[in-house]
């Protein structure tokens, strides 16, 4: 049966040395954290390792957790930090600038073919091609925009939780999230033609 204790209670129980509490936290968050990290770093093995690193850090820092705060944003803070560190160590950086989406040669193949075919081309994309194209475009977004798009859209975190996780005001969350969607929309439009998003 699923553990009904709140996240914060589980962490407090773990701190108090009660067995099983941390295991419940891990079981509760591994699936969504794996999805977040996989999208963030784009590598299954790395996401696997980063999930473990995240919970290891949660364990090591549990004593410094403020019990008045929510656990989930804190978990995402740690997780996002681990992902950023990983990307920096790997030297992965091929972000496209906001002014020149799609100029770095990535996303050729399906996307390039579709772009040449006009407004209806987006409908001709097979599901797999569409998913692959979206993944590549998100992967090419600047890190701070990709991060907030993952948290806000794919992980569906409330604005307040994102604000806490990234340590920015809620107003900044909204404006950055809007910038992220705008950026993606422009990349998408660039790839699949004006039919994808033209008004």
């Amino acid at each position, binding site marked *: 049966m699923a553990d009904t204790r709140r996240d914060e209670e589980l962490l407090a129980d*773990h*701190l108090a*040395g009660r*067995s*099983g509490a*941390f*295991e419940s936290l*891990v*079981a509760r968050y*591994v*699936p969504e954290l*794996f*999805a977040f990290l*996989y*999208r963030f770093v784009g590598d*299954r093995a790395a*996401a*696997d390792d980063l*999930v*473990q690193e995240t*919970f*290891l850090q949660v*364990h*090591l*820092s*549990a*004593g*410094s957790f403020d019990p008045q705060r929510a656990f989930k944003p804190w978990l995402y803070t740690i997780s996002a930090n681990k992902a950023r560190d990983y990307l920096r160590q790997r030297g992965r950086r091929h972000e496209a600038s906001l002014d020149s989406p799609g100029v770095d040669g990535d996303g050729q193949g399906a996307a390039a073919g579709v772009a040449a075919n006009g407004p209806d081309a*987006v409908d001709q994309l097979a*599901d797999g091609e*569409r*998913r692959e*194209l*979206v*993944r590549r475009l*998100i992967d090419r977004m600047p890190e701070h925009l990709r991060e907030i798009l993952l948290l*806000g*859209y*794919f992980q*569906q975190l*409330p*604005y307040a939780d994102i604000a806490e996780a990234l340590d920015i005001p809620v107003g900044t969350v*909204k404006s950055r*999230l*809007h910038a992220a*969607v*705008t950026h*993606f*929309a*422009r990349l*998408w*439009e660039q790839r699949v033609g004006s*039919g*994808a*998003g*033209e*008004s």
Partner: protein
Amino acid sequence: MSHDQTLDGQLLDLYLGALSDSERAALQQRLAADPQLATRHAALAGVFTALRSAASDVPEPPTDLIQRTCARVAAAPPLRVRRPVERGEATLVRRVFGLRDVIATAAMVVLIVGVGVPSLLHVRERGQRVMCSAQLAQLGQAMGSYATAHAGSLPFAGWSPRASWAPSSDPTAEVRPNRRHLFPVVRAGTVSPRALICPSTTDVPIPAAKVRELEDFPDARNLSFAYQNMAGRRPTLNRTPSDMPIAADDNPIFDRGRFLMADIPTRLGLQHPWAVNSRTHAGRGQNVLTLGGRVIWTTSPDVGIDADNIWTLHGVQGYQGREGPGAETDTHLLK
């Protein structure tokens, strides 16, 4: 949507699920009345349709990721609890240490090393014990699945009168370690080889890719748990009491099937050789799985039916490898 247009914030909030019911209703009214806004809405719908298509584009996490994560945490240093810093605590006070101070400091160091280090090790061991318990429970679930599919019988890989579960000097004996009976649940994929390795041990799992090629655990170190001796009367899920122990941390008085009774009292200074706990958790006790699927931590091996000792058979003094339980409630756990 052209490049110099900004996206309408409310439309984005609509797609991000950030609008209240009343805000959503108001926006719907605006959309109905404002063709330009409706056009932008349609444009944005295309973008979110694309994003939605990638929402499921994530592989499932590996099935053993939770287990590996817990094991990694259990093996980590113990928790650090931050102590609030008092105002002025960091002020440097210059002073000269006298002999009394040195002695006091030395006493503190001895105290910390003597009390602190063992307690830290104990915390780590406790974490490993919890992980071990969870893994034994997984094995219990796999055994339950097997029993359900085999009319209540526990995992069993066959037995013959010529067989021996211990290394034998008899050249005609067919050596079949008792651990072999657990292999069917690994073959069936209902438990991973890694789940059969207690984190307190140095045992190593069989590579998952090799499971299909094998009929048995190639080495005793591929399994951390002792299982009910299947060479005699065997318990069944339907008839035997559910609190009968059927698996546990490894038996301390057998080593790979070889009986160690002669060594045990001498090595451990025990008056009663059967009183010894499994060595898996530093001799403090053992995790025990019952037929009903419950895992309990016991500090004595006399936890079978009617306080039966789980390491030995009733009325048997010496073991050659062919002995089995005379009753289905006689627990005798070994690898």
